[in-house]
């Protein structure tokens, strides 16, 4: 514990230099703008900034990306409040009460609540990031091929179940992602799978071009094809956060922070689910439930605390297991690997300082959103008034650069285009994107560990089901699948109701 505090202290001191603070300020500002602009998500922002930070030292590059990530999730609340359009999917729940408050002439108050909730949520998440990462890392050291196989399956099943409104579709795209990851040379025999003699395909699809396509290009197509006109921006009152909002709703803040962090830890689920879950939990527990959706301070506080708490939460499995908790965390993980940092179970053994560096980066990112949340209100309103017909072509140019710059291959631009078109079609058919991304990230883990496990056990499947952690993950997957079947779900609900009444 004391070692951890010492490492954290040295990280805080190291990132306190003037040039580093300048990077934090620029990245937080960029994150805020990216998040606030509808059509530019946190995933896209982190992917684009990965390109820009290629030549920076690793710790500075990752600091910039974390500030961008935190800033974007927070920034998305601005367009949710002012335009009733969530800047990122994580801010959809904030539209309900944020925009209602803005229509009552309280846009400034809503932004103050959003700032308070975001800062409190991130701080709660940071506490658990520092606390849980070493613990989870220690548990992960006990993982063998069987556990890693189930971890990959667990991620896709849970993500598919929680990120859309149709688990079957979530699992289908999750499996598609796992399959996409298998294209190219296999990790055991270097055999070219599904490459059809194409040299580029033999190298497989790179994660960042695929993500830029699925999130960036698909979003450009969505926004440009929409008929809706942009709603008017309301006048802004005082936007200073009020301490009495935190004191009055402290239970909601803590509950939402815990929910957000926990959902962040679950592989591939992400900030949007954290936000909606926190919002729903706050509504259930509130004495003012009737105000929700009509401009409830508590509702907005819950949504914004939940999604921001999810950010540090999503980084916990990245560091401890090399499994991302959300789509932007997947890009962040890819960026860490590009910069020579290998996250995973061994990180607490080989590079414990890095874990506390990330905690310190998060602290500075929180400071960034607090400062820019207060000083950037009116400039952001100006930026939000730029028409989508001007912004989106520029975003697409950034998509092309983002896809190309990492490996300097034209093939990566074509990958981005292909994944963008497929991503757009899948969205139109109501397929969620998060399980697809997680499938691409976890495909290699599943592939190698299933085959290794079978070799170790000589084809015997028993170890996949009887080792304690494997058995637990298998049971969770099975229960999740069974509960997605309506008849089983109804039966389980009735049985639970009977237990509660007896």
């Amino acid at each position: 514990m004391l070692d951890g505090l010492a490492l954290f202290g040295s990280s805080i001191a190291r990132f306190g230099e003037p040039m580093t603070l300048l990077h934090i300020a620029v990245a937080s500002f960029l994150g805020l703008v990216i998040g606030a602009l509808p059509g530019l998500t946190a995933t896209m922002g982190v992917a684009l900034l990965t390109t820009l930070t290629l030549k920076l030292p690793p710790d500075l590059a990752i600091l910039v990306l974390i500030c961008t990530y935190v800033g974007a999730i927070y920034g998305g609340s601005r367009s949710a409040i002012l335009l009733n359009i969530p800047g990122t999917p994580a801010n959809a729940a904030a539209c309900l009460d944020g925009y209602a408050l803005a229509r009552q002439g309280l846009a400034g108050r809503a932004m103050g609540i959003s700032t308070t909730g975001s800062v409190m949520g991130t701080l709660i998440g940071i506490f658990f990031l520092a606390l849980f990462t070493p613990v989870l890392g220690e548990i992960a050291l006990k993982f063998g091929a069987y556990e890693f196989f189930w971890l990959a399956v667990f991620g896709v099943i849970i993500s598919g179940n929680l990120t859309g409104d149709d688990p079957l579709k979530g699992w289908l795209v999750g499996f598609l992602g796992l399959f996409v990851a298998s294209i190219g040379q296999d990790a055991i025999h270097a055999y070219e799978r599904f490459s059809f003699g194409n040299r580029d395909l033999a190298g497989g699809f790179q994660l960042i071009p695929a993500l830029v396509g699925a999130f960036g290009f698909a979003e450009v197509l969505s926004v440009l094809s929409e008929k809706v006109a942009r709603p008017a921006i309301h006048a802004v009152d005082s936007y200073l956060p009020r301490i009495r909002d935190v004191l009055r709703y402290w239970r909601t803040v803590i509950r939402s922070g815990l929910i957000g962090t926990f959902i962040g830890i679950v592989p591939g689920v992400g900030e949007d689910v954290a936000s909606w879950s926190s919002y729903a939990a706050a509504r259930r527990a509130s004495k003012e439930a009737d105000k929700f959706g009509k401009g409830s301070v508590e509702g907005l506080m819950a949504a914004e605390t939940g999604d921001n708490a999810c950010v540090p939460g999503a980084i916990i499995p990245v560091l401890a297991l090399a499994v991302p908790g959300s789509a932007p965390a997947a890009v962040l993980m890819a960026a860490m690997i590009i910069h020579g940092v290998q996250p995973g179970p061994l990180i607490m053994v080989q590079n414990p300082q890095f874990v506390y560096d990330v905690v310190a980066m998060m602290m500075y990112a929180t400071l960034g959103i607090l400062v820019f949340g207060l000083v950037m209100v009116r400039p952001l309103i100006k930026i939000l008034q730029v028409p989508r017909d001007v912004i989106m072509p520029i975003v697409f140019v950034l998509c092309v650069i983002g896809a190309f710059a990492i490996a300097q291959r034209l093939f990566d631009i074509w990958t981005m285009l292909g994944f963008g078109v497929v991503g757009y079609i899948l969205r139109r058919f109501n397929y969620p994107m998060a399980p697809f991304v997680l499938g691409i990230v976890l495909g290699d883990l599943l592939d190698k560990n299933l085959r290794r496990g079978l070799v170790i056990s000589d084809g015997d499947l028993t170890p996949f089901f009887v080792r304690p952690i494997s058995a637990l993950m298998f049971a969770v997957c099975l229960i999740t699948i069974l509960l997605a079947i309506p008849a089983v779900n109804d039966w389980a609900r009735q049985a639970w109701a009977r237990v509660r009444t007896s």
Partner: protein
Amino acid sequence: MTEKPTPQADFISALVWLAFAALVITGAWTMDRLEAQHINPYTAPGLVPGLLGVGIAIMGALLLVRAMRAGGHRWVRSPIAAKSVDRGRLWLALVLCLVFGAVLVGRGLPFWLATMVFVAVTTFLFQWPERRSKGQLGRGALVALACGAGTAAAVTLVFQEIFLVRLP
């Protein structure tokens, strides 16, 4: 984007999944099992793609059954509910982006020039109806050109000159 797909849309997507799964399973089954190299058969490269193909086929079949139960196999004129989507704008965006990404970039044309042309043309075409109704086509063209030139200059300066990122 929040519109729910019709059972017909699910029926169509289920058929696509089943066809895709059939291709994956066939590809995995016919893949070299590297027997000549005497590898452990459990490490055959086609094993995992094959299992994934089977998984996709099972889920595709479930989706198909569910869609058929909801009447998805009956023909309708427009299977995808898309009240918020302007198809003209969609196709225009798709064509312009594909031409820029797959044709203009990386074929010898300087990136700044390709960027300027793409941003200017896209902005102008998407603002066309509004500008025409206001009688501001000339002004629209100038604004679009300024956006294109500004983007090209900013992208080259920031990426290439400041952050030393190689552009396509």
